[in-house]
């Protein structure tokens, strides 16, 4: 049943209610009601995803293909010029979407896997396990995570795998706290008790009884955590201890081309070049924040009307 959103009729409302909407039609309705900022955010995220997945199709040159002219100006051949050893910056930006965003997504997923499952386990058991995990998290959170990450990277060395594991473990502390806090309210519900009496295992209770009920705050937290992880990885790469060359990555690209800023007086485009990867980072975090804002607003039940 199609419904014109401009006109309101009781029959339309009831009719639409009786006919159970499919997931797709509910999604379409939600999107229709979404504010401009959220639409902008979703469009940006979609574009980034497409570029990241099909990077080799979009990039005019290879990721580490070196051309004879370093620091070439913007031209039709090299859209954003070349970097300090003559690699095409536009191509590296596109491959950077794949590497930087991909690593950040993997890290966030791992952080949620660790923090989420431990948080659920702690909330269900409420025993020495809960005490032990909560106190360990308190200690881990007592040191700024960037400093902690620097210490761990100096021990284990800067490889992509180490980077993902270190940041994921440090960030899972916050996921743990949130999951535990929201799950504790659900664990005491009667239906969880019923499931327990029915003889279900802890895995079933976690997955089928508790998880669906704490999904909205976790999804919103996923967006915010992603931003945080993305910014910390970019900062570490910018400092030269994160993703290592020749892998194209936005954080290290800013660092490598930073000296071009000095030439902004003579050629503004050259001065803007190092800001492009930084702007790419900023745009994605702002976009994710917009979408998370809308999602929180929608699921918290607050209505503007």
């Amino acid at each position, binding site marked *: 049943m199609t419904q014109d959103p401009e006109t309101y009729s009781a029959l339309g409302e009831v009719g639409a209610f009786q006919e159970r909407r499919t997931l797709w039609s509910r999604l379409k309705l939600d999107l229709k009601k979404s504010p401009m900022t959220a639409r902008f955010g979703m469009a940006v995220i979609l574009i980034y995803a497409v570029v990241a997945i099909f990077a080799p199709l979009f990039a005019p040159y290879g990721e580490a293909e070196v051309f004879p002219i370093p620091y070439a100006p913007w031209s039709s051949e090299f859209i954003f010029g070349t970097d300090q050893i003559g690699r095409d910056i536009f191509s590296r930006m596109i491959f950077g979407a794949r590497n930087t965003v991909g690593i950040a997504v993997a890290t966030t997923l791992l952080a949620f896997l660790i923090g989420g499952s431990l948080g659920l386990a702690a909330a269900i058991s409420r025993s020495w396990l809960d005490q032990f995990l909560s106190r360990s998290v308190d200690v881990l959170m007592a040191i700024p995570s960037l*400093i902690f990450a*620097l210490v761990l990277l100096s021990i284990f060395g800067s490889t992509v795998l180490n980077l993902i594991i270190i940041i994921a473990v440090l960030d899972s502390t916050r996921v743990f706290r949130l999951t535990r806090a929201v799950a504790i309210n659900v664990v005491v519900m009667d239906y969880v008790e019923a499931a327990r009496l029915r003889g279900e295992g802890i895995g079933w209770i976690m997955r089928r009884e508790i998880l669906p009920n704490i999904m909205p705050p976790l999804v919103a937290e996923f967006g915010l955590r992603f931003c945080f992880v993305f910014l910390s990885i970019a*900062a570490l790469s910018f400092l030269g*201890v994160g993703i290592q060359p020749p892998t194209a990555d936005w954080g290290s690209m*800013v660092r490598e081309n930073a000296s071009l*800023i000095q030439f*902004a007086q003579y050629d503004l485009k050259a001065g803007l070049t190092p800001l492009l990867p930084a702007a790419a980072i900023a745009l994605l975090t*702002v976009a994710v924040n917009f979408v998370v804002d809308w999602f929180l607003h929608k699921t918290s039940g607050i209505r503007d009307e």
Partner: protein
Amino acid sequence: MHPVIKTVLERLGLGLATLFIVSIIIFSAIEMLPGDFGEAVLGQAATKETVAAFRRELGLDEPAYMRYAQWIGNAVQGDLGTSFSGRNASGVDRSRPVVELIAPRLWNTLFLASVTAIIAVPLSLALGISSALYRNSIYDRTVNTATLTTISVPEFFVAYILMLLLASLWPVFPSLANVDAATPLAERLSKMALPIMTLTLVIVAHMMRMTRAAIINLLASPYIQMARLSGASQSEVIIKHALPNAWAPIATVIAFNLAYLVVGVVVVEVVFVYPGVGQLMVDAVKTRNVPVVQGCALIFAMTYILLNLTADIIGIITNPRLLHPK
């Protein structure tokens, strides 16, 4: 015992315990190094004897708890060990004590952080309180949007935009903050203008939003409404009724953001080549110079924990419920 003193002592004990565990974690950094790091530090040509001597110097032939006791004892007395760099295969040792490397830089970092704090704290309190008072006005919305944007972008983006605008296009300030001990104060401040501005922008955004939220939260409580209904003026409501309860959240906000400053300086120091502890630490991580990393991490962690502890204690001693127990 007065309940306030009891709570403060409890919190102090907890802080000390945290500091102890954190120091163990930082200490174990050297424990987790791969077995062949002696060769890595001294170079391929190192003989078995020099490597053995180096390991003995680090005390690797003693049990870990003995070394921890020694390490923490020395650290308390201001000795953080010897840097890994400057050693070579022949056994000639030109390495310097870590403290000698850190001390002058620590002063620089503290200077940068305190100047930023002196500017940022009053500014963000004023912005936060005023935007809470004129909530939902155009002024409030503008400040909100501006701060939300500065929060969501990386620090180095803010830093490079300022550098592009104020050092390159309109050269008002120098782009590099390469100060040393001999630099006179005026020149030092002009060289540090851009790092200070970057840090201020980032930290004011956080602080202002948290202050605003704390005040709005408070102004919505029933006892403020009661005061209003009983005829108190706006300034009376804020100074006499709201502020006594707001000290705790405001102190937390300030301490939390000063602690955030500790992390913020690392990136900003690298961008502007400012000779501070953050830059030293990043360089040490790149060369895997573990004693220097440990020293810097210990200082950063200590500052962070102490600032958070201060915030908690201020929160406790300004809490009217604890001050006047039933």
